[in-house]
């Protein structure tokens, strides 16, 4: 298993390297003119040359490439053409993007898994067709349009004061009494929200697995959800994070809901296909013949096996999920990664663009690796692979 993961990690790194190289040359070489001639019209020739020297864009392309990559390896993203450090700028945006992406993916995955399971279990029929069609419609929906509908439905209900749809300038999305003199900045609150939710989910998952090994039973999904909510809200309450976290989630709910709607369809479709495949396997017939209750067959025998292709497909569709997020953030004025990517593109601020792309690439590489770990854990063919190797060697 370790061997497998190592191989995946190395191939992910190579892909990331190639992607960044490609993007560097594309963005550096296709820009109509360089930054100094485009944005400093009032300068004299000498001043322009001096500025180019300052920014380091008078050197040949290959030299800049090696410089940039060298500093990237050292963890330094360099400075924007407008003078601020890129890493610091992007660091402030990560919580926004991750909050929507991680929580959205988690919810979408659970919904898709459940719906696919139930649809396949029911077999062909009206419910199945309708759920398939609506899942596909949501999956192929135009993100700005969907965001428009979702914000229409939710804004009134949540009584949100949000900047309206559209436009490019992205600023603060948190208004109101609470944020006048807050104990925590919104970014800090977001990081904590993320940390608690993801941390406790992982904790519950691990506990569940331990329980399954010891007593061969798992917690029901409802108990898991209740435990998660209790733990998370308990922690927030104890640390005084409660009102802030609630407010952050309220504002973030529109992007999260839109993201969930956009991305659960795919999980559902794959789950349904692989579940119906699994239901025709011999071990399902055996389980039925043993007289097991149908719930147990569905949840314990079929659904667990059917989950594998879903994971492998999720790995593949990650870039699509991330790009869907980019569009969504821009439409809803959510100040995440895309906001910075777009603004930087408009200002031809190549270091920031490249920084944003590095972040997208790294984010997708990390998530891919995490999914690989889960996949390796779930798939016995991979799990036992290394054991065999050790015995042979």
């Amino acid at each position, binding site marked *: 298993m370790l061997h497998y993961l190592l191989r995946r990690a190395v*191939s992910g790194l*190579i*892909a990331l390297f*190639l*992607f960044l190289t*490609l*993007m560097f040359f*594309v*963005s550096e070489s*296709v*820009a*109509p003119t360089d930054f100094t001639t485009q944005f400093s019209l009032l300068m004299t020739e000498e001043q322009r040359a001096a500025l180019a020297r300052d920014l380091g864009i008078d050197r040949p392309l290959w030299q800049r490439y090696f410089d940039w990559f060298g500093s990237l390896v050292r963890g330094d993203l360099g400075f924007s053409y407008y003078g601020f450090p890129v890493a610091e700028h992007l660091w402030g945006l990560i919580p926004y993007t991750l909050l929507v992406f991680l929580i959205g993916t988690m919810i979408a995955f659970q919904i898709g898994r459940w719906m696919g399971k139930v649809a*396949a279990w029911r*077999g*062909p029929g009206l419910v199945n*067709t309708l759920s*398939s*069609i609506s899942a*596909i*419609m949501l*999956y*192929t*929906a*135009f*993100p*700005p*349009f969907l965001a*428009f509908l979702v*914000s*229409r439905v939710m804004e009134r209900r949540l009584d949100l004061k949000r900047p*309206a*749809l*559209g*436009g490019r300038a992205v600023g603060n999305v948190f208004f109101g009494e609470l944020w006048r003199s807050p104990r925590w900045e919104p970014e800090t609150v977001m990081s904590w929200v993320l940390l608690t939710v993801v941390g406790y989910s992982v904790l519950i998952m691990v506990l569940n697995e331990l329980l399954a090994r010891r007593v061969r039973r798992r917690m029901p999904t409802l108990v898991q959800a209740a435990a998660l909510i209790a733990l998370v809200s308990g922690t927030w309450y104890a640390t005084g994070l409660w009102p802030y976290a609630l407010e952050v989630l309220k504002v973030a709910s529109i992007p999260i809901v839109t993201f969930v709607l956009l991305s659960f369809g795919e999980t559902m*479709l794959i789950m349904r*296909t692989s579940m*119906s*495949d699994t239901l025709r396997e011999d071990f399902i017939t055996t389980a039925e013949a043993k007289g097991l209750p149908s719930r147990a067959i569905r949840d314990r025998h079929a659904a667990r096996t059917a989950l594998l292709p879903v994971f492998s497909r999720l790995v*593949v569709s990650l*870039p*699509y999920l*991330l*790009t*869907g997020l*980019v*569009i969504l953030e*821009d439409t809803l004025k959510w100040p995440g990664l895309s906001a910075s*990517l*777009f603004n930087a*593109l*408009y200002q031809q601020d190549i270091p920031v*663009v490249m920084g944003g*792309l590095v972040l*997208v*690439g790294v984010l*997708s590489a990390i998530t*891919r690796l995490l999914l690989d770990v889960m996949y390796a854990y779930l798939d016995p063919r991979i799990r036992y692979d290394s054991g065999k190797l050790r015995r042979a060697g």
Partner: protein
Amino acid sequence: MNMTVQTSSVDTAPPLWQMRLKLALKNFKSGWAIFKENPIGIIGLVLIVFFALLAALHPILMATAWEPAVYDPITGYDFEILIHPSPPTWIPQPDNPMWEFSFRHVLGTDPLGRDVLSQLMFSTRSEFLLGVGAALVTVLIATTIGAVAAYYGGLVDMIFMRIADVVYMLPFIALLIVLSSLFDFELIHLALVYGVLAGFGGTTIVIKSQALTIKVKAYIEAARIAGGNDLHIIFTHLVPNLLPLSFLYMMFTVTGAIFSEAVLSFFGLLDIRMSWGLMIQTAQAAGYLLNSWKYWYLMFPSGVAITLLCAAFYLVGRALDEVVNPRLRKR
């Protein structure tokens, strides 16, 4: 090649092309029988036909019922309506004393006084062209590379598959956004770039794995023994058997291409005269989505059209999947 030997030995048999046509027709019929069982595919097909009709109707309407000065999708302006954008004319407007029931603008007018329905119909054609163009490029590349990589194996295979792995991982839209904001991107460029990206990426991997299973069939061996060279075997025996799968992936490519066009022109990054994404962009740039619900008729037609056409090709693709993959049938 060895065709002359075959035909001269069997004099009474019909010519080869007739046999092929008959076989193709038979395949198509059995495929259609499976396809029409599935309501998903039928719904997709109906939607595609509907949009194709819309596209075909536009020039006819422009030539007959619609006056070009008013209804031109790009330069038209309606002077008889005082305030643009205006909602659909068949919806009663209590606060407008000038209102009377008509089908003058079925979907209303946009901020520049142009008829929305006309824009919608006019753009449909270019969406189809883009989708089909991108899909053809994809399938051409993917089928050729898939067949060649599977047939030769070894180094060729490895190189193409590593390229496919990398292209597969690229965040598509991010790349397109960077490209299009730095270039002057036209529709044809988008079709090419999208087609090439999709062709080198995931589609190749799927088609190659299919080609591998065909490569070991007995008739390929027979063709080789009969003296067919590599090119002959690849293009007359391997590729035709890959076409059903290629056709299936064409559908998914069309969805992706239309979607990315909509996204790019929504951001105003595409050099295009009129498209669904641009219609929303126009409304947004003019600030009409700030008070979003009041101007729903600026968002709805193109938003629904993009969603439906993308979904239509995807639905057809899903249904075709069952025709091509026997494993998925009859559940």
